[in-house]
């Protein structure tokens, strides 16, 4: 099909030698994978009881979890060594099981507080039959939310269940789609499976929860399958347009990466018909204009790549968070460098690489124009992953099928890289884990709280906006639930002195239109300490002060969280709720 599938004599000889061993070692990769799954099955029941650690689940959970992940890597390496495509594919599926099914099976509700914002939009569409136009950016890009509401309404399956099992389903789809994509981009079967394994095992970035970007990525890989077919002559280009339209309706950023990639491919004559990106630009631009009233509230163009590459976590986190962050930075840079080196080697071997280089590195151009609220750098890694895997996979296969030194080096490198990726993926586990009690209470609070009012968290993190009623509150005040430590600029405060507390109270006193409910949770202490947003004693100090302050009433108290409301008695100091009286 392409030069990619052309092997050099040396590589062919090594591969032939490897394949000749196949008879003797046929069952070995399967045996290793079976042991990996057994180790995972031993680890899984214990993971939900793992104690909180700043180094995440791998550090405090059963060691059998990381053992199972590394065994899958070994099983994959053995499979590739012996040219066993099916066993290598099984290894990619096993990687989904041990790394991604864990996320659903070891929890009772979805990870990440921001997942619940998405469920609130689903609930609104399901309840009202239309979007709440202009309330927030999610309502303008309703693809995933509307589809979930529709699916839930017809089938009776709860959106929460769909969100909870979304991650493994999305990864299984990615494994299959990346294999097919690599094939249409010219890779032979074993290289295609290796590319898929790389994407699956090095995806530390955690953009796989129930979200528009995860859905858009699946569609984007589907679109790139067709782009791969269109490199020499047009093959069903209308399908690219259809998939692009669905992506455009689902996610804000992904269309622009695809626009960049397809535009560069067309300019370099690697995509036919050449005018296709023009149609895609009209779709993306037209949809942006449709939502201009919402999109224009965000900075659309920021021509500072350095600032755009900064993450949205600006505080210095705990030691565990700093270590994890450095590990994933080194991993990302190493993977990009490996892809670049592979591209040079491929080019020197007279194999075409330009199209794959465009796919791998086009997402970096996004940093030239968008910070995406501090998330751009994570999306750049995510979007670069398939292209980099396409570049790195041929080299990985050649080395795994090469001499003992080469295959030992690449096997050790793969073990280290996948362990690093798993650390990146699971490092924030305890910070991002939600509990059923929090979720249930958050839903109840939205339903039962006085309206209008402010449902405010003292600090991140809390299952935000989980039901349709968030729309009413957001119409009352857009930032009705904005964390107090951000609103009052109290990041890093200990709340062990009057100054911090007064600044906090002053902000609440200035609020107009309704009372304030304020939530402090054990989860916030874990999250804020992990990311360095607040010192470990801060929320306990704040809670103690509020308990002694007559301007606050405790409306709910449990071991997990406490909820205060601005006091309603006639003796309350006027300063704390001057506007509550107005509302009455």
């Amino acid at each position: 099909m392409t030069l990619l599938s052309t092997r050099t004599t040396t590589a062919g000889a090594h591969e032939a030698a490897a394949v000749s061993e196949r008879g003797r070692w046929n069952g070995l990769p399967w045996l290793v994978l079976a042991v990996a799954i057994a180790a995972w099955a031993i680890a899984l029941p214990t993971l939900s009881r793992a104690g909180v650690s700043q180094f995440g689940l791998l550090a405090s959970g059963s060691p059998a979890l990381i053992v199972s992940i590394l065994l899958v890597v070994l099983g994959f390496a053995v499979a590739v060594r012996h040219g066993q495509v099916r066993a290598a594919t099984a290894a990619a599926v096993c990687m989904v099981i041990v790394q991604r099914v864990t996320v659903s099976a070891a929890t009772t509700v979805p990870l990440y507080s921001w997942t619940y914002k998405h469920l609130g939009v689903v609930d609104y569409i399901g309840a009202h039959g239309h979007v709440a136009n202009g309330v927030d950016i999610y309502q303008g890009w309703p693809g995933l939310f509307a589809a979930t509401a529709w699916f839930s309404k017809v089938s009776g399956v709860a959106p929460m269940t769909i969100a909870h099992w979304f991650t493994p389903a999305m990864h299984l789809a990615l494994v299959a789609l990346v294999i097919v994509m690599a094939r249409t981009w010219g890779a032979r079967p074993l290289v295609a499976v290796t590319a898929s394994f790389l994407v699956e095992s090095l995806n530390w970035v955690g953009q796989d929860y129930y979200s528009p970007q995860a859905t858009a990525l699946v569609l984007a890989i589907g679109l790139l399958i067709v782009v791969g077919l269109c490199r020499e002559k047009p093959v069903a280009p209308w399908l690219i347009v259809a998939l692009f339209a669905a992506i455009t309706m689902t996610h804000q950023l992904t269309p622009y990466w695809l626009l960049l990639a397809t535009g560069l491919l067309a300019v370099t004559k690697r995509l036919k018909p050449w005018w296709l990106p023009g149609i895609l630009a009209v779709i993306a631009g037209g949809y942006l204009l449709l939502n201009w009233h919402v999109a224009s509230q965000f900075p659309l163009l920021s021509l500072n790549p350095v600032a755009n590459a900064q993450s949205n976590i600006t505080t210095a986190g705990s030691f565990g968070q700093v270590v994890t962050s450095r590990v994933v930075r080194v991993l990302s840079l190493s993977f990009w460098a490996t892809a670049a080196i592979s591209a040079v080697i491929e080019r020197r071997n007279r194999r075409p690489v330009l199209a794959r280089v465009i796919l791998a590195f086009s997402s970096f151009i996004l940093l030239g124009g968008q910070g995406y609220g501090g998330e751009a750098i994570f999306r750049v890694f995510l979007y670069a992953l398939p292209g980099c895997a396409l570049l790195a996979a041929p080299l990985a296969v050649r080395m795994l099928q090469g001499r003992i030194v080469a295959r030992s080096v690449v096997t050790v490198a793969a073990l280290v890289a996948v362990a690093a990726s798993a650390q990146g993926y699971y490092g924030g586990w305890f910070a991002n884990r939600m509990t059923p009690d929090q979720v249930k209470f958050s839903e109840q609070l939205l339903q039962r709280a006085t309206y209008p009012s402010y449902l405010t968290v003292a600090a991140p993190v809390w299952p935000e906006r989980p039901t349709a009623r968030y729309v009413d509150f957001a119409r009352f005040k857009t930032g009705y639930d904005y964390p107090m430590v951000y609103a009052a600029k109290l990041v890093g405060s200990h709340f062990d002195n009057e100054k911090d507390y007064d600044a906090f109270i002053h902000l609440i006193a200035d609020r107009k239109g309704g009372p304030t409910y304020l939530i402090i949770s054990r989860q916030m202490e874990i999250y804020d300490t992990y990311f360095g947003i607040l010192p470990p004693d801060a929320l306990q100090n704040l809670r103690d002060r509020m308990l002694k302050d007559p301007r606050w009433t405790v409306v709910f108290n449990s071991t997990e969280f406490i909820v205060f409301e601005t006091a309603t008695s006639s003796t309350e100091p006027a300063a704390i709720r001057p506007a509550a009286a107005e509302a009455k």
Partner: protein
Amino acid sequence: MTTSAFSSIRIAMFTRSALPAWAVAGAVCGLLAAIPALPSVARGVLLAAFVFVAPGAAILSWARTLPSNTVAALVPVTGLAVILMVTGTASLIGAWQPRLTLIVLAVLAIAIALWAKTKQAAPRHAGAAS
């Protein structure tokens, strides 16, 4: 049954000419999912089968230039894209009739698939006549 017979069946299942049959089967799953009396789990499985098979298979029945080895991957992706666009548009314009939408999509999938099947058969008849 021999390995080669299994391979033939597998190849036949995923060729473009089999897509209309897949689309009709998926659409029937969708119509069954619209029966409220069925348990939620059953409706969920049937509806997932509809989403990931029927619209994609019906549409790709018309994609004659698409290689067969990509069809199995593109059918579910196309189906998902169709559902995202249809339900997304319905929510944007306020035309929200979930069960009716499902039935219309299922009937459309059957119609498109049967039309494609007729078109597939037409050149063969022409060839036979000549």
